[in-house]
């Protein structure tokens, strides 16, 4: 019962946010075209041939190295370090932690996705200020924020491991359910939902095939894409960025950085991908 209430609250919050946008002229856009055949398009096959080459030497590793350096060597003003950071498997344990988030963190009284947890630790132990992080939460061509490098390192430490986001704590289940609901929630000037593009097989936007995030073997594609090295611009972008950008592309109001709704969406996507093997960090168009 309680769970249902908070689901409704989250949806209500989004609905309220839309009201503010309702006066925007509603441009009609066709939903993404269905690929002609269920088979992969020739263009996708051509991209995939070279994807392996690109993945083999992924510049994400440069950011991973920077993140590792911060994790292992950076000291906070009070002498704190990331060795004190518990990503869910105990203080300082990085190996395998990424694929087991989002999870409930009692010390924070919240379900946190990996990015949220890393930022939490960097503020708590290394003295990073929330206001500074919020000033530029995502990378751009001029700067990749430290927390993005650390997230890249943490993600890389789960490479080739099975995704196993927990669903034991009631709040973890709640996050999944809220995420599932937001995923399917239609609105905005385009009357879009996440599911419009990511809720069925064989969808694509221009040359890009879109994964059906309701299926484990496709949810993994989105999951391991980010954090990813973005070829356009040449910098690292994270899951939080990807979710924000989906809101933007749907002409929804964008959630503030590290908001509950994004953690919920990530919980839904990650739990859907449970059991799949993580091969990230990614390299994306």
């Amino acid at each position, binding site marked *: 019962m309680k769970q249902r209430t908070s689901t409704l609250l989250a949806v209500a919050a989004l609905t309220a946010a839309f009201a503010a946008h309702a006066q925007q002229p509603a441009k009609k856009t066709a939903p993404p075209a269905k690929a002609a055949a269920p088979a992969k398009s020739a263009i996708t096959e*051509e*991209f995939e041939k*070279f*994807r392996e080459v*690109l993945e083999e030497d992924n510049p994400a590793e440069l950011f991973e190295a920077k993140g590792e350096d911060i994790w292992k060597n950076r000291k906070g003003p009070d002498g704190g370090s990331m060795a004190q950071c518990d990503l869910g498997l105990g203080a300082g344990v990085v190996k395998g932690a990424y694929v087991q988030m989002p999870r409930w963190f009692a010390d924070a009284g919240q379900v946190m996705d990996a990015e949220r947890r890393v930022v939490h630790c960097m503020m708590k132990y290394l003295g990073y200020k929330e206001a500074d992080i919020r000033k530029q939460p995502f990378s751009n061509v001029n700067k990749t924020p430290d927390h993005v490098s650390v997230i890249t390192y943490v993600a890389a430490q789960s490479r080739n491991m099975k995704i196993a986001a927990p669903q034991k704590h009631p709040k973890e289940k709640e996050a999944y359910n809220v995420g599932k609901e937001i995923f399917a929630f239609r609105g905005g000037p385009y009357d879009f939902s996440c599911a419009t593009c990511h809720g069925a097989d064989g969808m694509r936007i221009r*040359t890009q095939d879109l994964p059906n995030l309701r299926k484990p073997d496709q949810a993994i594609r989105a999951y391991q894409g980010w954090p990813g090295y973005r*070829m*356009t*611009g*040449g910098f690292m972008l994270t899951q939080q960025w990807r979710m924000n950008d989906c809101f933007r592309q749907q002409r929804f109001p964008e959630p503030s950085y590290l908001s509950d709704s994004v953690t919920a969406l990530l919980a839904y996507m990650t739990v859907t991908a449970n059991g799949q093997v993580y091969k990230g960090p990614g390299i994306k168009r």
Partner: protein
Amino acid sequence: MDALRRTLLKGAGATGAIAAAMAAGVLRPSQVLAADINRAAFEAKDIAGALKAAGATNVADSTAIAIKAPDIAENGAVVPIEISSSLPNTVSLSVLVDKNPFPLTSSFEFANGAVPEMSLRVKMGQTAMVEALARTADGKHFIAKKEVKVTVGGCGG
């Protein structure tokens, strides 16, 4: 090392351009030593100019040079290219993109066991021919080409 150095300073225009740049105060001598290369070829705005500045004349087409590159690049900012030469005594390989503002992207000299084979990633502003230029120890030049379609340009933003 001598062979490498000779090659690099080969083009007659090269030393002239560097001297001019130094005179103009653009390059400090230390940079010239560090770079030690013919930059004029990199500033040429078309293939013919780049080849000329690189000292490549009478360039013959060759099937002994292989170019591995996508038919369609997913992103022009990062186009993976692999070039190799089975021409005996290949001493250098260069990669050019004909429609780029400056076609010469890079040039590599091989010595002491390095195989004439190179993989790298280049920017392509639009659909263009990727050209691989090989030079053999006897100073001859050979070239091969492959078209790469670009869906999103890689220059600028």
